[in-house]
């Protein structure tokens, strides 16, 4: 008995184990597919708002206006919407837990490095556009690569929080497909961007929906004794 308690104590108080305990909790809380759904929606909005306004027509102007309004609503209400949705569908199944903010020196350093790289990347881009080395078409053509590299930040953060290496795959695949889209001369820039962004948005949204459905199937609603007492 003493040995059992001692083993638990050793495993549970060790620094690495504490990190693992935290990662396991994050894994539990992220299996509902909400991260993927959110990322898919943001990717779809990013493409349609940042890129599409470059080719306006009467229809597209209205479409873009609707998108901008939707985007504003999304930014304002997404948090309350997801919280309400989680309260109804997620918490009664696996319980509620609020995660701590990331404040480890490793994560902060990683974020700072990636932030500096992104700023350098943007300044370089603005500079080469200003000296007419490249055209706007070239910039649009290479947006998927920049986006893929930015997605690596997201992958890094997810890997750090969950401890699952498979999240690296997202960043790597988005960069490789971005590079392929940029180098595919046989298709127009419009087509390359549409395939890349809409393709990825839909794939990630579908992944989110599948994860959510599997989650609902795997975890039925648990009736806690306190709720049962209340119903009696």
């Amino acid at each position: 008995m003493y040995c059992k308690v001692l083993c638990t104590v050793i495993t549970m108080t060790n620094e690495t184990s504490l990190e693992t305990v935290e990662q396991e909790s994050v894994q539990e809380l992220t299996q509902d597919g909400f991260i993927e759904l959110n990322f898919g929606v943001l990717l779809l909005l990013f493409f349609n708002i940042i890129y599409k306004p470059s080719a306006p027509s009467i229809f597209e102007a209205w479409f873009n206006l609707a998108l901008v309004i939707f985007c504003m609503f999304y930014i304002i209400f997404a948090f309350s919407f997801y919280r309400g949705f989680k309260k109804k569908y997620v918490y009664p199944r696996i319980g509620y837990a609020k995660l701590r903010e990331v404040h480890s020196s490793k994560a902060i350093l990683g974020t700072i490095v990636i932030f500096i790289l992104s700023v350098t990347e943007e300044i370089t881009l603005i500079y080469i556009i200003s000296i007419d080395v490249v055209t706007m078409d070239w910039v649009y053509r290479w947006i998927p690569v920049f986006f893929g590299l930015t997605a690596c930040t997201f992958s890094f953060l997810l890997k750090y929080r969950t401890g699952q290496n498979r999240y690296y795959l997202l960043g790597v695949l988005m960069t490789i497909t971005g590079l392929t889209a940029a180098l595919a001369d046989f298709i127009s820039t419009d087509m390359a961007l549409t395939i890349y962004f809409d393709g990825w948005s839909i794939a990630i949204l579908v992944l989110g929906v599948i994860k959510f459905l599997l989650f609902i199937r795997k975890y039925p609603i648990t009736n806690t004794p306190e709720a049962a007492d209340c119903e009696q």
Partner: protein
Amino acid sequence: MNSEDVGRPIQLDKTIHEQARLQIMTQLYVIEEADFLFLMRKTGLTWGNLSSHMSKLEEAGYIEVRKEFQEKKPHTILKITESGRNAFQEYRKMLDKVFERLQE
């Protein structure tokens, strides 16, 4: 280890030094707050067990218990207090000392 510490008995916090309560404290230490269902699933404790250990930790001032209603159903949320966080860190330090002595 300090030479003064050698031979002095190491006092482990008995409130935390119990398997179930240690599990609860560990979970609450790594997340900000959690409800009963989440902790039941993570610790493998039954409702009654968790409830009794929760009371002991609350009495010690290591956790804060918040009760609210969610869709007309009661919902209990547990959160580690600053004193609980310090006690857990202290407990880990003491435990390290125990193992340092064992190595000697």
